[in-house]
């Protein structure tokens, strides 16, 4: 039973299901792009914790590239850059 509705006692009710990208490819909103420099990273996970859009993933198994940013949906707010204690993340203007 997947779709925009649920049937309860033969009554069709509208129902939304969690979807990635309900507002489209929000990466197109971006003015500045956060760029990750793996050498400066101290693996504190603060960027992952504070990312408002949940686009930062932590790769526990891969210390050489500890975080990945999903640029399809990153809105470029820069909160991750602001909270990064070692400046491993920097904001670069989008071309």
């Amino acid at each position, binding site marked *: 039973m997947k779709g925009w509705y649920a049937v309860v006692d033969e009554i069709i009710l509208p129902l*939304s299901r969690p979807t990635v990208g309900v507002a489209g490819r929000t990466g197109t909103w971006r003015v500045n792009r956060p760029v990750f420099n793996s050498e400066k990273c101290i693996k504190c996970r603060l960027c992952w914790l504070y990312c*408002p859009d949940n686009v930062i993933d932590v790769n526990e198994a891969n210390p050489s590239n500890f975080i990945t940013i999903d640029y399809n949906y990153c809105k470029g707010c*820069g909160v991750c850059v602001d909270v990064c204690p070692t400046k491993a993340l920097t904001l670069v203007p989008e071309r």
Partner: protein
Amino acid sequence: MVLTIKDLPKDKYVMPGNAACPGCPENLGLKFVGMALGEKAILTIPAGCTSVIQGLLPGSGLKFPIINVPFASSDAVAAGVSVAKKLIGEDAVVIAWAGDGGTADIGFATLSGAAERNDNIIHICVDNEAYMNTGIQRSSQTPLGAWTTTTWKGKKERKKDLPMIMLMHKIPYVATASVAYPLDFIEKLRKAASIKGFKYIHLHAPCPVGWRFDPMKTVSVAKLAVETGMWILFEAINGKVVISPPSKPYVDKTKRKPIKEYLSIQGRFRNITEEILKDLERQVDENWETLLKFT
């Protein structure tokens, strides 16, 4: 045991690509609710920014079970859901997630009613200090001197002290939290979920759009609010107030940063006079004094 970042679950309850503005504090708050309670959480959400974040019908930007309700009824509906869940014997934490308009102004009647009945729900007020969703109109939570589209020369009235009003309802649990201190917020949520009865959490959420600051500063501004003493983190179990660890150093007045640091970063306080600044400073002292009387 002290909670650390490594202990937090990695499930995503806020889906990437939702309709929130860049740097949205409500997204952050919802993310922490997901981390704290996970699958147990059920949300009732009145009109507000969060109903925009959810998006349009076939999809939802949030992974929680959510009921969208009319503005003033979030707590009444949540109370009903909580009783229904109890009757069928399911373990659930029902949360009324409302903005400051849905809590302090329009939703206050049902909030007060549910608190008086001691319904088994958590009410979280996401306080972005104005009606941001409809275009930054003043609310009773807007601080003195702040610009909004309906107070161009700065608000002339003080902010209503809602956590204190809820404390006076004599409910089992009242707490304040901030999006800049997620571990504190998550611990408070878990504690609230374990207590039976009406729980109230007031979450301070700086809105980059309405407060006129750079979206990247959301967390810094929230942190400054605590460091200047403008926002006090505390929890009260059965009326006994305990100042939370992030706010503890600022009990001492000399340790607080000057509030100008917090105000100057925000465009909405650009035109405040020296007189209003003094009044705001006085308010900070008064709020601390009143609160410390309950410890």
